[in-house]
Structures are given as C-alpha cells and as structure tokens.
C-alpha cells in the first residue's frame, strides 16, 4: 500500500489512499527573479483521476502546472526548488533530459497553438521528433488514432493537408490535444484549455477529457469552477502562490474545510 503524503492541513480521509500517484511534488517554490510565485506546494496526482487546479487569477496555478514538464525552464529568470517525481524518478535535476520528460508529460495551452503546418503534420510532429513511427504507413496510423482519440477524425479526415490554422478554435484545441496524445504520453497538462472557446466547443473538450481519463493522468487548470466540478474528481485550490486545500472535487465544492476555499467557491472573491 502506497500511502500518499498529503499536506498537513488535509485530513487523510478525504482522499482514497489506495491509488499509486503518477507524479508527486514536494515543497515546491517557484521564483521569477526575486518574486516568489509559488510557496511550498506539495501535491500528488494519479492516472485514475482528473485533477483540477482552481483559484483566482495570479494565484500561481499555471506556474505550478508548468513545473511538471519543466516549461518554466524556457522562462528567463525562473527558478524552481523542491522535488518533483514522475513514477518515483526525480525530474527536477538539471541532468534530466527535458526532451524525454516532455514526451511523457504532454501539454495543452490556453490559446490553441497549432503549428502553421498541415493538420497531418501537426499530429506527426511529435512522433517524428521522437522517432516513434518506422514507416509512412506507421505514421499514418499514429495520426489517425490520435485524431480519433481526440474526436477530430471524422471532421478532418478529408482535409488532412489543410493548414491547422484553418480549423475553428475548438477544432484547433482538439488538434492540440491530438498532437499531445500522438506521442502517447503518461500525463497531459492542460492550462485553461477552454478559456478561448465558445460553450459548444468547451462541452466537446470536456467530453474528451472525460474519455481520456484513466488512460492519461490529466491535470487541468481552470478559472471556471463549474468546469472543474464537471470534469475533475480531485480539485486543488490555490491562492497567493500557496495550495489552500486539495481533496475530492465533490467535497471541495460542497463541504470545503478551509474558509478561504469556501469564500472562493461561493463567489466572495476571485
């Protein structure tokens, strides 16, 4: 039995402890130059559940998300301390190869960011750079299955040569999700994936997230509490760079322990 160490302020009965965590983070601090963006955050998440990070703007929920695939490396002056493990292996050490890490931990961004290439080439990008397809037929198969899993195949199968940027916003975002799952990652990080989409496109993405649960460990940052309630089973509430509360989504939204969580959930601020 792998007991999970939850933050001290969390009663253990809030989380079923029988699940093996996919990623574990301990005592994470993030600094941008001299400014501290994240204070001492410890959190685990697993493949079985979709985990939602909620909190007001500027609370650090996107910053902590970017620690899990070391995207903070690309920001000049960003510094991350603490320990993050993927399947028990530390990923924060400078010796770790971010290329392999990012093949295992995919990411979907706030604004759909398809490459200015064809739909096919967008999906084929990851398999190509990681050498996952031995032949053209292989690659065709990978592209098709990624698009199918992202629920986009039927819409684009006749226009794979069109530019990815010609799709609608919602299709572009599903293209980005398909691009991420084309390399068959273990974790998918989603940074407010629906904030630039209309309600219909949002519903499709949420459906897709639900389909993908269990196959990938999914973490979704959202400022939309209804969305967190709809798609996640675990929710972490962040405020001012600290994690205030983490537990089962149903509990966080119906019976939060912390007063600040309750205030946020009920719309007192944020």
């Amino acid at each position, binding site marked *: 039995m792998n007991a999970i160490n939850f933050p001290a302020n969390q009663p253990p009965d809030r989380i079923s402890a029988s699940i093996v965590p996919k990623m574990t983070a301990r005592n994470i601090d993030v600094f941008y130059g001299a400014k501290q963006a994240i204070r001492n955050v410890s959190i685990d998440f697993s493949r079985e559940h979709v985990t939602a990070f909620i909190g007001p703007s500027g609370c650090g929920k996107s910053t902590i998300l970017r620690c899990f695939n070391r*995207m903070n490396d690309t920001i000049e002056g960003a510094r991350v301390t603490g320990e993050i493990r993927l399947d028990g292996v530390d990923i924060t050490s400078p010796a770790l190869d971010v290329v392999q890490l990012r093949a295992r931990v995919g990411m979907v961004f706030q604004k759909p960011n398809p*490459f200015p290439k064809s739909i096919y080439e967008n999906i084929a990008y990851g398999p190509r750079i990681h050498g996952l397809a031995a032949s053209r037929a292989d690659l065709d198969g990978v592209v098709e299955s990624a698009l199918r899993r992202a629920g986009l195949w039927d819409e684009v199968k006749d226009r794979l040569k069109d530019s990815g940027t010609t799709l609608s916003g919602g299709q572009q975002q599903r293209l980005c999700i398909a691009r991420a799952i084309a*390399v068959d990652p273990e974790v998918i990080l989603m940074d407010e994936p629906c904030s630039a989409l209309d309600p219909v496109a949002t519903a499709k993405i949420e459906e897709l997230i639900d389909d993908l649960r269990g196959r990938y460990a999914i973490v979704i940052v959202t400022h939309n509490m209804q969305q967190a309630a709809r798609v996640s089973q675990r929710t972490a509430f962040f405020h001012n760079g600290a994690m205030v509360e983490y537990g089962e989504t149903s509990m966080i939204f119906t019976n939060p322990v912390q007063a600040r969580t309750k205030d946020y959930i009920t719309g007192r601020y944020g």
Partner: protein
Amino acid sequence: MLALAVILLLGGLAFLIGRWRGAALAPAGGRIGAVHSRPVYHGAYVALLALAPALLVLAAWGLFGGAVIDERVLSALPTDARPLTPLDSGAFMNEVHGLANGDFAAAFNPDTARAVPIYQQMRREGDLATLLLAVALLLAGGLWAISQLKPAFRARNRVEAAVWLALLLASIVAILTTFGILLSLVFESLRFFELVPLSDFLFGLKWSPQTALRADQVGASGAFGALPLFWGTIFIGAIIAMLVAIPLGLMAAIYLTQYARPRVRRVLKPVLELLAGIPTVVYGFFAALTVAPAVRQLGVALGYADASAESALAAGLVMGVMIIPFVSSMADDALMAVPDAVRDGSYAMGATRSETVRMVLVPAALPGIVGGVLLAISRAIGETMIVVMAAGMAARLTLNPFDSVTTVTTQIVALLTGDQEFDSAKTLSAFALGLVLFVITFLLNIYALRVVKTYREAYE
C-alpha cells in the same frame, strides 16, 4: 542675410502683438469658450499671415534674383564689352561676382571691371527693393490678420490647417522628386531608344558602347546589347552575394532570436546592424585591395591561370557581407513575429531548440524571410561602389566566378564620368540602363513589401 533677420524679427513681433491682442479679447478668468481660440493661436495666426508672403518674396529673390541681375548687367553693358556666347557670359559674370565680392584682386578681362560698378549698384538696389517689398507685405498681412481677431474668430483651426499644409508639402517633396527622376529617366531613355532598338538593348549579347566621334575612327562601332550587364548584375548581386548573405544572415537572426541570452542580444544586434552603417565605398576598397587579390590567388591555386584581378567572386563576397545585416534584421523581425505560443507548443512536445527552429519557426517565418531576401536582392543589384571597384569592366556572359564581369551600375558610372555629349547613344544608354534598374528594383520592392505585409497580417 540681414533682410532675413529683419523679417524674422518683425515676424516675432507680429506673434507677440497677435498674442497680446488675442489675450485682450477676453477678460482674465473668463469661462472656456468665451473666446474661441487661446491667445497663442491668435499670435501664431498673425505671425503666419505676416511671415508667409514676406518669406516667399525673399526666397524668390534668393533663388532667381542673381540670374535677373546678371541678365540686366549684361544688357546694360555697351555692345563691344559684351561676351559673345552664353558660355562666355557665365565665365564673364563669374569674374564680375568675384571682383565685386573682393575675391579677385584684379580683373583678367578688362571689360569685367566696367561691369562691376553696374553689378554692385543693381545688387544693392535689388536687395533693398526686395526688403522693402517684403516688409510691406509683412505689414499688410499682419495688419489684415490683426483686424480679423475677434472672440469668435477660429484662429486655432486656421493655424492647425497651416500646420497640416506644411507637413503635407514636406511629404510630397520626396514623392515629387521621385517622379521627377523617373520622368527624366524615361525621356532620356526614349531618346536612346530612337537610336538603338529596344530589342537590341534588352536581348543583345554584345556591350561595347564606344561610338565613333569621327567618321574615320577605327574600332568604334557601338553595340548596346545589355544582356551581359544584366547577367553580371544578377550573378554578383542576386547569386554570389545571396549565397553569402542568406545563410549567414538567417543563422545570425536565429542565434539572436532563439539562442542568445537577452544581454548578449542587446549587445550583438546593434553591432551587427552597425555593419549597415559602413559607407559602401569602404566595402569597395576592401573588396578591391584585400579580397580581390586573395580571390585571384585562390583561382590560380585552383588551376585557373586566367583568374582576373577583378572578379565577380570578390565583389559578390563583399557585397554579401554588406547585405548580411539587412537579411538578418528582416529575418529577425519575421522570427520574432511568430507567436511565443507556437514555439512553446513545440518545446512542450519535447522538441529541442534546433528542431523547433528548423521544423516550426523557420517554416512559419518563411514568407517574412523571403520578403526580406527580396528586398536585400533589390538593394544588392542597385549597389554601385563595390562593383565599380572590384568587379571590373568586362561585359561578358560567364559562369566562372573568377572572371571579371560588369554590372549595370558599373557601366552607368563609366558612361557618365568624364566629358560627355548628350546626343550620343553612349551617354543616353546610361539612362536606359538606369530605367531598367529602377523598374526591376521597384517591382521587387513592391512584391517584397506585399509578401511581408500579408505575412504580418497572418499573425495579427
């Protein structure tokens, strides 16, 4: 000079009076809108109406007064003292000017000494009359303007309109000048094409612009086939120079935008752009004195004994270096215009920096880069000093970079230096060459700017 100072002083006074009168229109502390314009606009309006006509008169006298005086001095002289031809008149009056200003101690032509007092008197009278006229106009304009000042008078709008007009004229000057240049090119070229058929010029293979001055002169037939010139221009400017400038410029831009730390970029980018500030004549003698001999030696070492001391390769290499900052700064802009989100998307897929550059950023920025390269080509083919000094004069169709070739610009320089008569095909051919160059670079620029523009719109 004194006249200008007087007029400007009076203009300043007009401003002060206008402002004072404007201020007097409203009692202090009156509500906004009681007087339409603030006193400073009344002052500016009065100064404008006072100064504009007066300055125009002074400018007209400054531009044309000298010619009018010279004309009248000559006609005032007794017939026997007058110079015979217009050319002599010029020299004659130059001497008169020199004597009158005290630059010459004594007259070379005794007749000029007779003209000096006439000239001096006319000059004095002319200057005085102009000044009086200017002051009269200034007073008239100023007084009329002052008489218009009322609380409801829209002085501000009139001053703003005058500013608008002045700025419009300033911007039109450049455009009109370009038109003038184009027209002179077209007309002189038409004269050339009366002598030499257009098809011979554009498609002829032999360029030998010497025409016979005398009927019995030897070896001066005159051939105006410009194709070797066009080829030389393209060979140096669009091929050799671009083989240097495109890879180096693009790689410099990739380094500066994707690899360099901000501090390094802050230093390196301006330094690279400094290269664009080196006068092309400096590149020219660097090409002629340093690069060309080395290229010749290389050619000889490679077994080409006839390697020329002036070569397409030497000129092209140096021109390529000159164009690097141009290409790199356009490519820099194009790469920076690719949204960070696209780059992050590639990194998040586990792509390395070079994979991201190669597979995402450069393809995404390609239209902008191509536009920049086209602009660079149009600059390279119009460039003159380097090719004049390092490419040679031999008009030939060759693929050998160690041969000397010649370009359109080099030939224009050669055709228009020295004594020229403007009725020979030799001189006029320079205008035809200039016209072709103008049309080509003009079209290239239009096309390149359109490519760059549509590309920018794609990311906005």
